């Protein structure tokens, strides 16, 4: 570890300013973007990268998954474009995961160099999840049923959209011709570029203020700071090897679940370090549920940052203390041309398995298994052309000291009134599902049921996991419930929609329902305080039957009161049966 060379106060001041610049870039993007995904659901991120291409600072409002959008972008950019060819006013665009871009094609990254006195001193960038980047179906880049990346949409390598401040019209035309709804994507591009340019100006002010030498040293030291903090956090974890095994539902070719096997090694010497090894993980899947290596690293960083120090920047310094190993060409390290549109399924389960592996040594800030991820895309053909994509929350896993969060996800939902203003659809309900939270001393969060009613002929696309393998409970907690997606669930002929689908036709008055699963429980449900079970029954999150079956708690439905004696008897008999 290097000794801090600058005045630590200068480093702190510059670090704070970088964070605020990253925030400003992101706010500028959100406020002027056109895609629902960016403007309402805030599926976007921003970054500051140093002149060597290393990530230094991301906005804390950034989606954790998007770190991968930047992790290798700087490096790839400097490899592809000799430093002396990069000019002030350039803006680069990239979305291909196999050429330095984000972790699936739907995420589109914009990066601009920052010059000071003719010298390249840094880069700033942002990423937004576009609703469509072409491909075989609307929103395909986020769906999972493609068999190679070419089907998922337009692959954009690192290219200049602006050269020395000049828009490269031919590149723009090429991009817009290959995406559905080009007018709105054009609006998004303006928002991406506008906010990145604001970031460049702010960076130039900062460098002017401190001088480029101090600035560059401060960036180096900010990496050292992150390394030091990560290593410090590791010292609070007991040394050892910790393992977990979770499964992704299937690869849709067969019913066979795909194992995600993880081994976490904590070492205090010679230097404190964490190694996360995915040896024994299956795949790659034939369909687009694979994750590229940098995506896997990103999610591991997200989880390890949460555990080691929630305030540390997950930058290139952090990377020195946290290593991720993944066998070549598997589910968590897929290679071109493996499809990967629905890679968030894997992303949603990586925290589950890491928390499970470490659950024996950590009792704060972890969760039992969660509900997975559920992306729902709707689209229409002329005269009702539209594309609408949304992720639906489910139950978060229970925690060592409290219940899981009900109906939660990493990205925002779309307000129903906004959806009905903009798209030819209506919502019939948005509500919690009783008994969906995995029982435990602390209950898993409950899932959400959401019903959409079609107003015109449309198509549904889906990518969703935990349809076969529920979010696992921890330490005797029970699993959460599975997710289902059903067309006309309350009719005489309900039809299940598969968890990966692109063009499922639906007609006016059809109802598409998602029953998003609940999170796993934590600890033995028989140890849950009967008063807490009663409260859940009163609030309709647990049914009277569920209270008896899952918790051994007897509630008088008429009075809404506990039957304490009957509860004691029931809990004794359940315990006795378990032993027998």
């Amino acid at each position: 570890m290097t000794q801090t060379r600058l005045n630590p106060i200068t480093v702190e001041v510059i670090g704070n300013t970088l964070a605020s610049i990253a925030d400003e870039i992101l706010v500028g993007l959100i406020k002027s973007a056109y895609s629902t995904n960016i403007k309402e659901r805030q599926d976007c991120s921003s970054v500051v990268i140093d002149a060597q291409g290393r990530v230094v600072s991301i906005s804390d409002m950034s989606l954790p998954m998007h770190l991968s959008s930047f992790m290798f972008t700087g490096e790839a950019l400097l490899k592809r474009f000799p430093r002396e060819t990069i000019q002030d006013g350039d803006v680069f665009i990239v979305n291909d995961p196999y050429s330095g871009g984000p972790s699936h094609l739907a995420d589109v990254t914009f990066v601009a160099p920052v010059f000071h006195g003719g010298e390249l001193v840094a880069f700033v960038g942002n990423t937004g999840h576009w609703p469509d980047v072409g491909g075989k179906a609307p929103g395909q880049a986020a769906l999972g049923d493609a068999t190679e990346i070419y089907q998922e949409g337009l692959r954009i390598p690192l290219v200049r959209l602006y050269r020395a401040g000049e828009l490269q019209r031919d590149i723009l035309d090429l991009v817009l011709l290959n995406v559905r709804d080009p007018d709105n994507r054009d609006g998004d591009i303006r928002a991406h570029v506008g906010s990145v340019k604001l970031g460049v100006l702010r960076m130039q002010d900062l460098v002017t203020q401190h001088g480029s030498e101090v600035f560059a040293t401060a960036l180096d030291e900010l990496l050292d700071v992150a390394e030091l903090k990560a290593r410090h956090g590791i010292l609070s974890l007991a040394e050892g090897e910790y393992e977990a095994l979770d499964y992704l539902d299937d690869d849709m070719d067969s019913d066979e679940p795909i194992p995600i096997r993880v081994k976490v090694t904590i070492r205090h010497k010679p230097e404190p370090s964490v190694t996360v090894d995915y040896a024994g993980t299956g795949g790659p899947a034939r369909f687009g549920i694979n994750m590229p290596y940098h995506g896997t690293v990103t999610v591991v960083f997200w989880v390890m940052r949460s555990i080691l120090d929630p305030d540390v920047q997950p930058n290139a310094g952090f990377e020195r203390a946290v290593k991720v190993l993944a066998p070549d060409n598997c589910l968590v390290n897929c290679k071109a041309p493996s499809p990967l549109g629905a890679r968030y399924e894997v992303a949603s389960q990586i925290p589950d398995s890491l928390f499970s592996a470490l659950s024996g040594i950590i009792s704060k800030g972890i969760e039992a298994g969660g509900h997975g991820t559920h992306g729902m895309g709707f689209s229409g053909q002329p005269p009702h052309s539209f594309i609408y994509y949304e992720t639906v929350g489910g139950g978060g896993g229970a925690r060592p000291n409290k219940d899981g969060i009900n109906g939660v996800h990493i990205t925002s939902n779309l307000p129903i009134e906004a959806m009905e203003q903009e798209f030819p659809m209506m919502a019939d309900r948005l509500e919690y599902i009783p008994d969906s939270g995995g029982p435990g001393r602390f209950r898993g969060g409950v899932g959400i049921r959401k019903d959409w009613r079609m107003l015109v002929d449309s198509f549904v696309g889906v990518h969703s996991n935990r349809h076969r393998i529920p979010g696992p409970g921890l330490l005797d907690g029970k699993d959460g419930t599975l997710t289902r997606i059903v067309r006309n669930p309350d009719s005489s002929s309900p039809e299940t929609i598969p968890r990966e689908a692109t063009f499922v036709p639906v007609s006016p008055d059809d109802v598409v329902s998602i029953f998003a699963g609940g999170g796993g429980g934590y600890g033995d449900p028989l140890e849950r305080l009967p008063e807490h079970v009663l409260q859940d029954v009163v609030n309709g999150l647990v049914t009277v039957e569920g209270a008896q079956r899952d918790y051994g708690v007897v509630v008088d439905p008429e009075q809404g009161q506990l039957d304490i004696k009957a509860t004691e008897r029931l809990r004794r008999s359940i315990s006795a049966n378990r032993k027998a």
Partner: protein
Amino acid sequence: MTRLRIGVDVGGTFTDHILFDEESGALYTFKTPSTPQDPSRSVMDGVHQFATERPEGLTGLWLMAHGTTVNTNAILSRTGAKVGLITTKGFRDVLAIGRQTRPHFYRWDVDRPEPLVPRYLRLEVSERIDSQGRVLLPLDAEDVHRCIDVFKSEGVDAVAVCLLHSYANPIHEGRVKEILKEALPGVYLAISSELSPEFREFERSSTVTAVAYVGPVFQKYIRELQQGLAQELNPAPHLYIMQSSGGMASARVEVDRPHLTLESGPAAGVLATVDLGNRLGMKDLISFDIGGTTAKASLIRDGRPSMVSMLEIGKEATGYYGIRITGLPIRAPSIDLVECSAGGGSVAWVDVAGLLKVGPKSAGAVPGPACYDTGGSEPTVTDANVVLGRISPDYFLGGRMALKPDLAHRAIDEKIGKKLGMPAHEAAQGILDVVNANMVRILRVVSVSRGFDPRQFVLVAHGGAGPLHAGDLAEELGVGRIVIPPNPGLFSAMGLIISDVQTIATATRFLRAVPENLSAIREGLIQQVDQCLDTLNIEAIPERDQVVERFLEMRYVRQNFELEVPVTNELATESDLEDVVAYFHRLHQQSYGHFDAEAPVEVVNVKARGVGRIPKPQPALLPSGGADPKDAMIGRRRVFFKGYNDWLECPHYDRVKLLRNNIIKGPAMVCEFDSSVTILPDHKAVVGSMGELVIETGKGEKS
């Protein structure tokens, strides 16, 4: 006849009072600890104090303007009313699910705020209206009665109603209200289409339940306060409450709209800044208020504060309202205040990587900074100011409280200096550098990130600690001129006594900004204007003092965040509309760095702001003196200045003895009852006609 007015601002720690004699221009001030258990007590304390202090008593007191935290506190401490909520069938969990996001990406143990209404009191009725306001399914009145049965047996104090798309057609909510009114007399009702007729169901539900939650509490508070005033004073003064939007409303109007008061006190501080700027002929200002635990920045352009349409109570991190919703969103027009945890009480510490951090922890008033000798041992920003000689230990609070500089020195030396390997004064300067950087960050958020260059603005620094830091902040931002108002620690209370009455009406109307919609847009505006005029009439504002302005909240079609565009023409012709749209393009360019003249633009909300002008008091003129402030000099002491990296022997002045036209050349300190002003080397302060200090920094672009 004597006419008196009182401004009283109840803050978290102190309650500030100002009594103003309109005839003589005399000001009386009083500061007393707040009494959170019964906030009206500290309010009445001031009334008693002034009644005794002023030989003539309080005869002629006609107005009391009040900034209150009663409603915010009730939400934060979850001590509001028992509320029932009625929603459209299928949507009772909207309030709890909100935007479904994790409140903190990296802290998995943080929960979303608990909804103000538990699930068993969130009930549904069968009905449906679409986004165009068409009734698809009529309201089932039987369902309403079933809800009422539950509410009766549960004994709720208040009922909130939020049905889908009620902003587009309020008919069902109106009917529900009628039924509730008849069946539940005495129960407080909050109806979303009346309180917040704007789209996005979660934000609207959250707002209306918050109103129901605090309404009964606020009603009781106002009733008791009015009774208290009536007992002491005959006739009782007219009681006004400050709104977050920076205007007053009379208490009887405000009890039905308590959500409008959540940032009552801070808004008053911004308003005082606007008023001071008006008197000095300065229109572009940044109001900066540094208290004990937080700093708040707000931008004023062309004499108008920037506004936001939503607040979040209990927000996690970041000053950007509405970007990632992590608190309870409350839709209420509010002055755009960005705050950070940085103030005199902020605690400095060294993190594991050896970096110096300041805050967010605050020593508050208890245990307080180390130098208070009241039990605190952590080094704070106040301690740093003491170590550097910026706060004179024997002049603090006018000498009422002797500070212990050795304790400040020890705390900083032991907890910071030794760890960083630097002498105490360097560590103290480091603390100021870090806390100033945190403050500069929010000053940039309100200026640079909104598209404004701070160098073109005047920095108005107030709050107890504002004047100490203003010089450094101005240097950092390149600001050319600083104004330190008289009584900077009581500035919010000052804002209360110069406030006008204000009312804002908004409604959602999705209309493309095209000629075919001209009359619909105009009609929408007229409705809002009429609503404002009705309120001003209820407030008994004479017609000649009523001013109503109109605004359209606009965006490019398919965008999601609106910009507020003033409408200054009659909107009678196509070219009137074109002018408004052109203004929108310019505003977009300024705010986000780009615009698109070809892209279709739409109106989302129509809005009007009604102001009822209340005569402004004229403060007394400060007697004139020469340029030399020698008569106000207390003595000379050593103060450390970073720019010189040295201790400089510099004069200290007593602010109350300064006279108009006195000129103070830095380095110097100006001491007063509840604050100290740092005049940096190379800065120059001139004493103005009301006692304000106008400091020229030699930087910036003079405005």
